[in-house]
């Protein structure tokens, strides 16, 4: 039992911080926000060379072969600086391929992810907005060996810059009994995961303007897109694989959200030290300082849950669902509060476009629904600990 970061993880954090200071300071964040995909291929390439992009990818495929706790270190820093990047999306696509991909699929995508020459993302959600297998209603027409998709995937993160989408859909075959903690949903057809390349015939992406302009998403239209056996992921238990991807997503968003929450807190603590009213820094007033102390209690508590969850992805798979939900539920609500209060503690300048705190507020709005909001995860925890109603 050792609940501390290693020395190497400390070096990793320093290296990522230095990279972000040099290559992605707030001025660059604001510049990227105004570009169509909030994505800079040069920055992404450089980040890959620095090693962060391929951090989780096995060395055999050109990555660093590190674990999720290491990845959390990186995400805390990209969150703290609000770096616009498809880092989480690509990590999740890579996880899908690692878990369920064939050697050829791994060979095709993982090295390109690691070197920053391809970007991947998950396409799971539909108009129903249910973050789980129960939200996957898209049914393929089966053309012998090939699944043909007609339909839409919504809220696809980094849809505009992705080269490959991990699409969740259903085959025409009836599914077996639902597994895991999923409540019976009645949607027909066995769950499948397939890889759809951006340039495949029938793929269209419509970008939707984002509230948080550092984060982009779009609607993926699939108009007769063909998924052959070579593009299907051969997951032994697709529901379990999908659940793992979404849990890893929860943990990744929690890590980036935590970094951002700490960033917002640091900005606001500094502001509270600098801004003078009634003859003293406003940070002397308890209405200010106690809110900031509460934020710190929340960020520290989230860390405890998050680190365990990240560790569990590599070391204790059976604990992942519970800890993903514990961490994401805490983050979703606490970060929301932190965003709101940090803006308020800035007074009127908090309401300006010029001050950076508004960017953190918008990030908190982005993070809340990602992979399920607080109530979604509280309901799931209730099912895990008390069974279905």
């Amino acid at each position, binding site marked *: 039992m050792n609940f*501390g970061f290693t020395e190497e993880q400390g070096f990793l954090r320093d290296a990522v911080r230095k990279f972000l200071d040099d290559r992605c300071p707030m001025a660059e964040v604001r510049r990227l926000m105004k570009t169509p995909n909030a994505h800079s291929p040069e920055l992404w390439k450089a980040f890959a060379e620095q090693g962060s992009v391929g951090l989780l990818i096995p060395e055999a495929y050109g990555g660093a072969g590190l674990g999720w706790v290491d990845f959390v270190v990186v995400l805390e820093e990209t969150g703290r600086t609000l770096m616009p990047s498809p880092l989480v999306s690509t990590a999740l696509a890579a996880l899908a391929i690692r878990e369920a991909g064939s050697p050829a699929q791994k060979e095709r995508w993982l090295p390109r992810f690691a070197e920053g020459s391809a970007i991947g993302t998950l396409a799971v959600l539909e108009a129903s907005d249910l973050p789980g297998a129960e939200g996957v209603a898209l049914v393929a027409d089966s053309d012998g060996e090939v699944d043909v998709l007609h339909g839409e995937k919504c809220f696809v993160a980094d849809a505009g810059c992705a080269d490959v989408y991990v699409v969740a859909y259903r085959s025409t075959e009836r599914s077996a009994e639902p597994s895991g903690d999923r409540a019976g949903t009645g949607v027909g057809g066995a769950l499948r995961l397939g890889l759809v390349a951006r340039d495949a015939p029938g793929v269209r992406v419509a970008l939707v303007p984002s509230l948080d302009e550092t984060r982009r998403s779009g609607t993926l239209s699939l108009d007769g897109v063909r998924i052959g056996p070579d593009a299907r992921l051969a997951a032994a238990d697709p529901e379990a694989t999908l659940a793992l991807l979404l849990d890893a997503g929860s943990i990744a968003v929690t890590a980036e959200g935590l970094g951002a929450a700490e960033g917002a807190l640091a900005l606001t603590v500094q502001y509270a030290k600098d801004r003078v009213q009634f003859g*003293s820094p406003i940070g002397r007033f308890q209405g200010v300082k106690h809110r900031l*102390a509460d934020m710190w209690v929340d960020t520290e508590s989230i860390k405890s849950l998050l680190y365990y969850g990240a560790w569990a992805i590599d070391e204790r798979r059976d604990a992942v669902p519970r800890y993903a939900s514990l961490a994401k539920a805490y983050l979703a609500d606490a970060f929301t509060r932190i965003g709101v209060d940090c803006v308020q503690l800035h007074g009127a300048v908090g309401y300006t476009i010029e001050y950076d705190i508004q960017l953190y507020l918008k990030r908190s709005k982005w993070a809340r629904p990602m992979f399920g909001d607080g109530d979604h995860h509280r309901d799931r925890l209730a099912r895990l600990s008390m069974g279905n109603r």
Partner: protein
Amino acid sequence: MDFNFTPEEQAFREEIRAFLDAHLPDPMPEDDPDFLRLWNEKLRAKRWVGFNWPREWGGGGGDLIRQFILKEEMSARRAPALGLDFMGLTWVGPAIIAHGTKEQKAEHLEAILDGRSHWCTGYSEPDVGSDLASLQCRAVREGDEYVIHGQKIWTTSAHFASHIFMLVRTDPTVSKYKGITCLLVPMTTPGITISPIENLSGKASFNQVFFDGARTPVSNRLGAEGEGWKVVMGALANERSGISEATEMLQHLDDIRSLAKRARRGGRPALEDDRVRRRLSEMEIRVEAMRLTGLRHLTDQINGKPSGSETAINKLQRGILEFEMSELTLELLGSAAQHQGELQHEALAWHGTVIGGGSPNIQRNIIAERILGLPKD
């Protein structure tokens, strides 16, 4: 980061479980002092009381992780608390280990472990609460003795305590932190009188303690004269880290879940109510966060990084949790919440624990000033 327990730690867990299987009676006798004494002897034989105290003073010489495992297993089975002298074990003993003379160690440590002593703590005074350093209770040195005049209040367990771990002012001429000294005083000392105070749940848990020229030998001083503040900072950290352990909260969560199973809301089992379920999940989130934060701080301690202010996190979390749990308990009881009863009274007790050991506002000040570096108010 590695959350796996080592095979040795796992084996220790198994040993505890086997011990509990063999020795823990089912059902457990309630409020039976003879049973508690017998139980303590059994634990003493295993050196599980004072598990991390030095062996030469009767402790187990164990490490903090194993101690965590021990507490967790005991609590999971609802075994009686480890040790009979709660304050002695949690902060007085550790303070004596850190600052005491050989004679003081010999006199007090084994007595605490055996449950032969029962300590209480004299910090607060009628005019001195959160601002503890302004304490007034006076001790004047006369030859080999201190003569104590003054009053303590809110002294938990003083009515059956054998000793008081107390702070006195020995020098009113220096700055308020410097003139404080810590004394270890037998409650049988002439000149001490006790008057109980009923708390709002109707129990006499705390007291006023009056010192009217009580004399105690200088050899009962813990640490140097004027060094009492240093002693008490360590003791308060130990008190708060005891308060901030998650084990008790896990039991509460269990209790409230069983209550939710029995209770009905809107004609249905309460456990089918979305709002109830979500509130229980919210509690589960905080309890688990407390548990893991506790483990993180243990790691910090083992790595030699002091965990002073960080216990404030869990003290605050506990305050929130106890509030939520108490209110949900009363809501689940429905109209029966108006009756007197065990659950109803327990639901009031948090009003005390939330203040004892330092109020939430004081914890927030500590975090804001010591950790975030905001100006003192």
